[in-house]
Each structure stands twice: as C-alpha cells, then as structure tokens.
C-alpha cells in the first residue's frame, strides 16, 4: 500500500531546500540559492510556502548594512521530512 506523499515536500526545489537545511543548523539565503541553482524570486516564493507551513523558520536580519535572511528547519519540518522519507520507502519497497 502506497503512503501519500506530502505535496508541500514533493517538489524538487522545496525538497532540495529542506534537505540542505536538515544537515545544517541554519543556512543563509544566498547559500541555498547557490546550491539549488534557483532564481531569487522563485526561491523566495518556495521559502515563504515552507515557512507558512511551519516547516522552516525565516529570520530577517542585517549583516553590517546588508540585509541577511537566515533559514532554519523547525521540529515540525523535521517530522514532516521524516514522514516523507518513510512514505518514499513504500514506493521503493525498501
């Protein structure tokens, strides 16, 4: 029996963002942009979606005079990611 996949995570860009944040405590927006190869606008939209779902926490701060956006995964995001990987296993028959 296939388990349903979280539609919010079942998207290349959002899954990539979550996977990057899972092994780091926090990451800055330019780093995620560089790693995913996404445009700033698209990335910003996906980050907002994940943030609205409570999967990540977005902190807007300043580094000197430059604005700096820091993203970190929340416990709810971690749980959703674990559930997503569990659900994937049923598709792969692991």
């Amino acid at each position, binding site marked *: 029996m296939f388990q349903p*996949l979280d*539609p919010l995570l*079942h*998207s*290349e*860009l*959002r*899954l*990539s963002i979550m*996977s*990057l*944040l*899972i*092994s*780091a*405590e*926090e*990451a*800055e927006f*330019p*780093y995620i942009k*560089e*790693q*995913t*190869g*996404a445009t700033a606008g*698209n990335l910003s939209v*996906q980050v907002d979606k994940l943030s609205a779902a409570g999967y990540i926490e977005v902190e807007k701060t300043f580094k000197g005079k430059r604005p700096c956006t820091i993203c970190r995964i929340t416990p709810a995001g971690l749980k959703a990611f674990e559930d997503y*990987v569990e659900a*994937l296993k049923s*598709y*792969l028959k692991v």
Partner: protein
Amino acid sequence: MEDNKNMSAERSLEIIRESIEKSQKDVTRSTARSMLISGLATIVMSALIGIICVCTKSGTAHLLWFLMPIVIWIGLRWQNRNSVPTPKNYVGMLVGKVWKVFAIVVLTLFACQILWLFFCVRIVNDIQSLETVHLLSTQLILLLMGCAIATTGYVLRSSWLKWCGFICAIGGYLLESYDVPFQFLAHHTSYQTAGFSNAWMPCVIVALFAFVGLVLPGLTLKGKE
C-alpha cells in the same frame, strides 16, 4: 532547479542525497578551514612571541597573547571575504565552542596573573608572594589544551585525536610538574639558559599543541572532503 511536482520516488531520493551531501561537504570544508586558520594563526603568534622574548630577553611579549582572538577573527573574516556564507552545523559549532572556552579560561587566568603581578610589585612591593602564587602555569595550559584536543577528538569521532589529547594533557602535566624540560635544558646547556627558557618554552608548547589540536584535525577534515 525546476519546480517539478511529478517527480518519481527515485528522483526524490536522489535530490535528498545530493543536497545532504553538498551541505555536509560545505560544512566540513568550512570547519576544516576554520581549524586550519586558528591553528596556523596560533603557531605564527607563538613563533613571533617566542622570537621577541629571546631578542628582548624578557617575557613582556607574552602580553601579545591577548591579541590572539583578534588575529583569529581577522583570519576567519579574510577567509570568508568573497565566499557565500556556509551553513552552520552542530559539529563545527561544538568544536569552536570547546576552543572558545579554552581561550576564555586561559586568557582570564593570564589577566589575573598580570593583575596579581602588578599588585605585588607596584602596590604592596612584596616580591615573595609572586613566587608562591602561580595562577597560570605551563602545566595548567597543557592540561587545558590536552582536554580541548581530546574533546575535539570525541566531537569529530577521531580516535587518534582523542588519544593525542589524553597523552598531551596527562604527559605534559606530569613532565612539567617534574620540571623535565628545565632539567633537560640545564643538563645540556646551563642553569641560566634553562631558567630563561621559562620565557620562550610556553610558546614552543602552545605551537606544538596548536599543530596537534587544530592544524592536524583541520587537515584530516580537509582530506575527508
């Protein structure tokens, strides 16, 4: 990256694997660089202070140790000057904090020692007290540095580093407690030379420990990349 919502389970797993691998690689690279820069800065500073001590025949140059945090901070800023900031992770932060605690304890004790020296010499004019109270000795530095190296070994899961830390802490403490470096120098040179080694010997020891505790683990992490 496209926002493809109809990807297969295999593709999902591939994205997860690639992203985690990329992120871990960057975190490892950043931790390795920070350790290398801190270690090299400590070695250069030790050499500089040691040379000044030998040239001026006094230990006043040891005051330069207070510049150490600034030197490391400048080194790390210089390293990250053009690069995209790498993410923080628990391992890197834990290693950084272990060495931060070591630096705070040693520099605070050193500051107390200087204040005590000032108090004895300038205020109460009691040189005798200077001989009896040693707030910061080489063996204490060795013990603390050895503990920092062993803890770094535990955090990085490196057996050789753990054992290096234990051997450095216990071996260094015992050697210094029984005055082995002094006796060795006195036997091979003169008591005067051995006595003067108190000014430069800590620099050699700190440089050696910085190599074992920061440069070698940094190189090991870089190798793992």
